[in-house]
């Protein structure tokens, strides 16, 4: 570590990495106090896409909030649907049939791969490479077609209901998913790893950049690939098993270096693990109803409820307080990126601006999920 430098006031200038910036992938503003190319202080300013989701939750009934969940993290919308469905099913005590649980896991894992593919495209776009975007979107369009067959929408899904899912998957979806698995497994080593992961330019840009220590992750509450990149073996699908995840065997990629390269590798391996989950889920898919019986108007018992779900960015928590009425009395959405970004100020201090942008890309931010 070099000797700490004391800077007088007139040796630094303030730069707005503002709302409209290609690298922030949304409207995040970071107020940077700069000393030449070095960052003296980075202070993210939020709220430029705050859309009152928690106020809307209190205004409508439980079912009316389901479309909102997909508009917070639109890259992994099905996990948000799943989280909201889980907490309300816990509160109202609704049973979900076996087949619906399997369909939920299949669609959530497909959506996770689509989210990682888009992160991969956007991350390399930040680092200056445009062609990976075309590969990733080519594969991602395959997933979106599959999910569109089942859910009806391309991005903001409203597919899950309290007690099951909206409609059943058919054989063409199953064969299409198996073809997609074969196709991605064929392309992954050559196209994704040989051309990009082992590319010297990428390694030079993200190796040993933005190192986060496990203690920092714990103090700032960072979860998901950011924590698993720093050696913390925490994945809600394994640590707090929900739905039918215990029936599949998959492992959690954990890397100890804690730099941007580690987070990159965690997400790439997570894609392969998701493929394994989908394959096993398709093999063991039971048949039966996809919709359990749930009362038309839900009036869950008064009390405090919490459900945690593993999204592509970390642990998403729904803190629900019910007062026995038909509207949620209070809903707090614990968004994973909100906590993952809160450590940006501490880690980005003293970094070069170009590295700070590569570091921000490795955090995989979705801004409407931060601002809610």
């Amino acid at each position: 570590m070099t000797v700490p430098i004391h800077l007088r006031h007139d040796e630094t200038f303030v730069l707005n990495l503002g709302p409209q910036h290609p690298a922030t992938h949304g409207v995040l503003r970071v107020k940077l106090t700069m000393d030449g190319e070095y960052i003296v202080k980075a202070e993210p300013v939020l709220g430029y896409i705050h859309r009152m989701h928690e106020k809307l939750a209190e205004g409508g009934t439980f079912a009316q909030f389901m479309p909102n969940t997909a508009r917070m993290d639109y890259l992994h919308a099905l996990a948000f649907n799943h989280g909201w469905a889980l907490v309300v099913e816990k509160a109202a005590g609704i049973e979900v049939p076996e087949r619906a649980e399997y369909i939920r896991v299949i669609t959530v894992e497909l959506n996770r791969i689509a989210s990682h593919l888009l992160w991969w495209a956007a991350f390399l776009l930040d680092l200056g490479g445009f062609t990976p975007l075309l590969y990733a979107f080519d594969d991602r369009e395959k997933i979106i077609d599959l999910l569109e067959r089942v859910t009806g929408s391309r991005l903001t899904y409203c597919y899950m209901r309290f007690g099951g899912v909206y409609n059943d998957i058919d054989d063409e979806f199953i064969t299409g998913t198996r073809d997609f698995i074969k196709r991605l497994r064929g392309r992954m080593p050559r196209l994704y790893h040989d051309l990009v992961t082992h590319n010297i330019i990428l390694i030079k840009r993200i190796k040993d950049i933005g190192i986060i220590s496990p203690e920092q992750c714990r103090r700032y509450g960072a979860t998901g690939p950011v924590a698993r990149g720093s050696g913390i073996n925490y994945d809600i699908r394994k640590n707090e098993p929900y739905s039918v995840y215990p029936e599949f065997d998959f492992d959690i990629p954990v890397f100890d270096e804690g730099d941007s390269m580690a987070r990159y590798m965690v997400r790439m391996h997570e894609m392969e693990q998701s493929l394994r989950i989908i394959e096993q889920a398709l093999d063991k898919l039971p048949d039966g109803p996809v919709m359990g019986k749930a009362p038309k108007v839900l009036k869950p018992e008064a009390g405090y409820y919490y459900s945690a779900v593993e999204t592509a960015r970390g642990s998403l928590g729904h803190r629900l307080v019910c007062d026995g009425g038909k509207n949620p009395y209070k809903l707090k959405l614990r968004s994973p990126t909100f906590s993952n970004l809160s450590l940006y100020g501490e880690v980005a201090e003293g970094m070069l601006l170009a590295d700070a942008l590569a570091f921000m890309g490795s955090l995989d931010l979705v801004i409407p999920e931060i601002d809610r």
Partner: protein
Amino acid sequence: MGEENVPSSIVQFAQLDSLLNLGRANSLWPMTFGLACCAIEMMCTGGSRYDISRFGAEVFRPSPRQSDVMIVAGTINKKLELAVKTLYDQMPEPKWVIAMGNCAISGGPFKVKENYNVVEGADKLFPVDVYIPGCPPRPEALLEGIMTLEEKITGKRRWPRVHPG
């Protein structure tokens, strides 16, 4: 028909202007102004499947000084309002605005009585040329929006209009 939205210049020939408008219409440089979910559909349109470069609009310029059309893809809220107006002013004059998605058209799913933070529609801030409904609109809808903008600029429609049903 495409005259009134392009302000007058010093030298004016009818023939020259229609030639210029033809050039402007087929090389619309959009500004990367993705706010929320619609930005992902805009990226999909930039991808190779929907391929926005068939209309000459694949050059997404980050800086307002080099862009012709501002695609408002997402929700504008009160904290962002001044930034959006600043960006609109900083764009050089032959500029157009596409309001993509319900949030940009009218506040969309956030136009409720408890709305305290969302600007209900981009046309409250500046004149909008093309509205693309949808939440988010499909990439084909964005392409149709760009074709409609080209029709507005040049006065004639180069691509056949597909009527549903």
